[in-house]
């Protein structure tokens, strides 16, 4: 309670921006995979075609999951920053309110 909470809003903000940017990049990758992916397979027949379809579909699913994961990470970082700020505010207030009582009782203040 007597120590400050260690956090850096600027570093946190930069990380959140990068995570959101990464989610946007994955969104764009998904758009291209969804647009070009089926088109290049037109007129394609042979032993590798089914493998390609399966791989592409599962990769799209995995990319969606990773995009949501990255957004969830950004969300968690924001929530943790808020928690750190609240904790710091609480400690400052507690110090201000409790220190005079501690001094009055003859304890360190």
């Amino acid at each position: 309670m007597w120590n400050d909470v260690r956090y850096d809003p600027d570093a946190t903000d930069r990380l959140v921006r990068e995570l959101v940017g990464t989610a946007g990049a994955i969104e764009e990758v998904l758009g291209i995979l969804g647009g070009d992916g089926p088109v290049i397979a037109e007129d394609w027949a042979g032993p590798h075609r089914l493998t390609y379809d399966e791989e592409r579909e599962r990769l799209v699913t995995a990319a969606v999951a990773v995009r949501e994961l990255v957004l969830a990470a950004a969300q968690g970082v924001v929530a943790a920053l808020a928690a750190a700020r609240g904790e710091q505010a609480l400690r400052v207030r507690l110090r201000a309110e409790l220190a005079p009582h501690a001094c009055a009782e003859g304890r360190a203040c």
Partner: protein
Amino acid sequence: MPVPLVVARPDRLQRFRVTAAALADGLERRVGATRAALAAYEARTEPAFEVPCRGSVDAVDRLGGALAALGGWVGRVGDAFEHLPTHDGIAFDLDDQLLAAVPATPAVGAGAPGNGATLADAVEDVALGALASLRSGTTAAAAGAAAAGGAGGVASRAASRAAGSPITTASQVLAVIAAGRVGMGEIAHRWQTEEGSATWARAGRAGLDGVLNGAGMLAGGAAGAALGEVLCGAAPPAAAACVTAAGTFGGELGRRGGELLGDVLLGDEPAVWERDPLVLSLEIADVDGAALDAAAADLDAAAAESADLAGRHRGFVLEHPWVWADTYHDAPVVPPPPPAAAIPTDGPR
């Protein structure tokens, strides 16, 4: 016994290799920037309030690797067709042995996935681990906040309530970005397609095609999300996933509707757009700055709101210290007495 027939358009398969490599390169650059930001964050944040993000970044890294592997493998199939006779761009043969040199499945790096595993499995394994780590880390941070707030747990509820808004807002911003990019892509595509026609007519048709595609995607996404809200109920987190899925599905339907309408009104266009790999890679590595600023501002506002809610709750708790006095990090509110030698004998200092 039927004669095996193999057919493909080799130029499209080879072009996909270039496109996938550019996308993977862009993701790699983005991962590098994110790792640098993450290192600074970890160095400057107290562990109790730090969210584990390494796994999430690793999953993006794996995704880029899988994408490059798929593109490389598809390109090898295209190479196998390259020297066959073609008709209207389509190469064909009556013997599938020509593909014997190409592995049956793509593999990340030198090793094959094996046991029927796909490229996506490697990505999903890392993503699942990252999700578990993220959940436990986020829970730990929330528990720390709840402990600081005492018996109420209101702080964690306030944090989760405020934390619920940024992902919605960010998703909405991303949807607008995606729709905008689809629209811009269609404009560029149509512009390239109609090279040689009058400039004003070309610009008008390209613009109309872009608006139809982008607006179709936005409208479809909004309609899908609204329908999802009605059908999925309001119990998070399942409702959020359900609404997101419905919105994504609606957006795709809307985009296809807009594309179809554009094709009907303006005529068909070539199926595969030739992209500049370098431009594509840089685009992936650094997405639209203005839109990201908006998303980051939303997240920041949500953080401020969350801090305000938590602060107000804690202010209330502070007025009633007995509620939480014995639960604050399991330590007494009043600091322990100093060592005997340091106790002052002449009253408070």
